[in-house]
């Protein structure tokens, strides 16, 4: 059973040429897929279209077999889709605790909310130490950790991440990706990880999909992609 199916999706902005053209993709349950490609290849647009932030011109998105077409972003999220957007998406006017709680609101009720937040602190220890800090006082790494924790707290079925490693130190990146991989293995979470950091992404993924000019140009097991120099060179430029 596919956790997420993208069926001939076409996305564009205004009247311009499509940024994502007739794209089809299949995410099996529990898989971790790395979405690779250069800047402008359409990774961000694809993720935004999957979550409904950008309207699609054509095609469908199926979450667990159910068509998401026409659903608002918040409704898609409530069906189990989550996105950690590019850049710092922490709500800086709120504290760490409030950000986490916000993420837990729709999924949990009453005391379960507090339990979910506590569980998040266990998983992401550095956040526990800063629980009452305002968002804007957090470092880049802490913010990304918070964004990830906040997305996970709602126990999504499918988690999309848009360049989580952007601007972060390698050590922090390794830590984050490690937590991500562990959580995915533990809970059966399906992950679509869009990255320019190819090595990091391929190290935690099962499969790698390369996007170029809005279309899929390669779909291989991650190990193969990482190991094959010709493939890497052709599509990833190194």
């Amino acid at each position: 059973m596919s956790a997420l199916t993208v069926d001939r999706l076409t996305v564009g902005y205004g009247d311009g040429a499509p940024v994502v053209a007739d794209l089809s993709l299949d995410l099996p349950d529990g898989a971790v897929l790395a979405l690779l490609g250069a800047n402008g290849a359409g990774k961000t647009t694809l993720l935004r279209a999957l979550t409904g932030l950008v309207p699609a011109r054509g095609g469908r998105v199926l979450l667990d077999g159910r068509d998401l077409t026409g659903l608002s972003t918040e409704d898609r999220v409530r069906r189990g889709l989550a996105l950690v957007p590019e850049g710092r998406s922490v709500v800086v006017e709120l504290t760490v605790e409030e950000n986490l709680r916000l993420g837990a609101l729709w999924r949990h009720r009453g005391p379960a909310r507090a339990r979910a937040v506590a569980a998040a602190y266990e998983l992401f220890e550095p956040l526990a130490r800063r629980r009452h800090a305002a968002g804007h006082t957090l470092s880049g790494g802490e913010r990304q950790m918070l964004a990830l924790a906040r997305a996970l707290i709602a126990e999504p079925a499918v988690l999309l991440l848009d360049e989580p490693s952007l601007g972060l130190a390698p050590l922090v990146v390794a830590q984050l990706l490690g937590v991500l991989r562990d959580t995915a293995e533990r809970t059966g979470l399906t992950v679509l990880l869009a990255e320019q950091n190819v090595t990091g992404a391929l190290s935690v993924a099962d499969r790698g999909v390369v996007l170029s000019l809005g279309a899929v140009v390669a779909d291989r097991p991650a190990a193969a992609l990482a190991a094959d120099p010709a493939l890497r060179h052709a599509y990833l430029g190194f």
Partner: protein
Amino acid sequence: MRTLLRAALITLLAIAATFGLDPFRNYQLATAAGVFAAVAGLTVLIGLTGQLSLGHAVLMAAGGYGYAATATAVDAAAPDAGPAALLAGLAGAAAASGALGLLLGMAAARLRGPYLAGLTLALVIALPSAANVLPLGGEQGLSAPFLPVPEALSALIAVEQWHAWLAILISAAAVTPLVLLRAGRPGLRMRAVLGDETAAALAGVRPGPVKTAAFVASAVPAGLGGAVLAVATQQVTPGGYGLAFSLTLVVAAVIGGLGSIGGAAIGAVLVVALPWLVDTAVEAVPADLGQRLNGNLAVLLFGAVVIAATLARPDGAAGLLARLRRPTPAAPTPATPSTNTER
């Protein structure tokens, strides 16, 4: 230049039209001409620089007071100096409204939309108080000299027609520079600032001075419009320039299409003619209801038209603005109150 010829032609046509109208209609025409001057300034201001002024009535009042004070003084000093009183009065009107426009413009340059609108609103509400505190004659206001028909024409035309002619000429003189400004480089600069301030600044167009200049450019015609009203009614009172009137100016600008001077003319005629039409129609209605409808029904209709206009072509009010902005990549879905403050 073509614009000047066109302006002259329209002016002559308007003057010719006054022969076909009865005295009351000519009086209305004079009023409409005055309102037109103010609305033209306002519509250029909002349409080309996005600055919403809710207080243009105060600028008209400033012009009116300036005219009244100066004309009365000159008239007293030199009673038989022909058009001196009128011309001096107009200069006074332009000076007063220009000065106030400059002050407001300097404030406007530093303020974003709602804040400027709020400031101008406060100004309108404060006008009656200002009239009491400053030497402006309080509630009674100031009176302006009555301008009789000149000897040479007295056999031909009545006084209302004469005033209509003056009104048309003054308004033409006030609005024509706006048309030129709009079509020329200043207009381009204004539109650049409206579209993207940062980009404009990088291109060497300073947003602050441009916005201030736009405000002054819209204030002077408004002031001259106030002078026109003073010519037609021979008085300037704070009651004549209240909140309702100021909002009516905005309505006229919106109805005609923001940024369009031709539209301003249509809007001006409408806001002068419609209340009168409605009140006449209302006379047929039984006394008590009729009393309440008097004046209010017109305002109700105007409000409804403004709402409908903004809903139907949100582009109309913002279209000029939207077309100037480069298309933003992230199209927000219609249901969200999208803001630019996302981090």
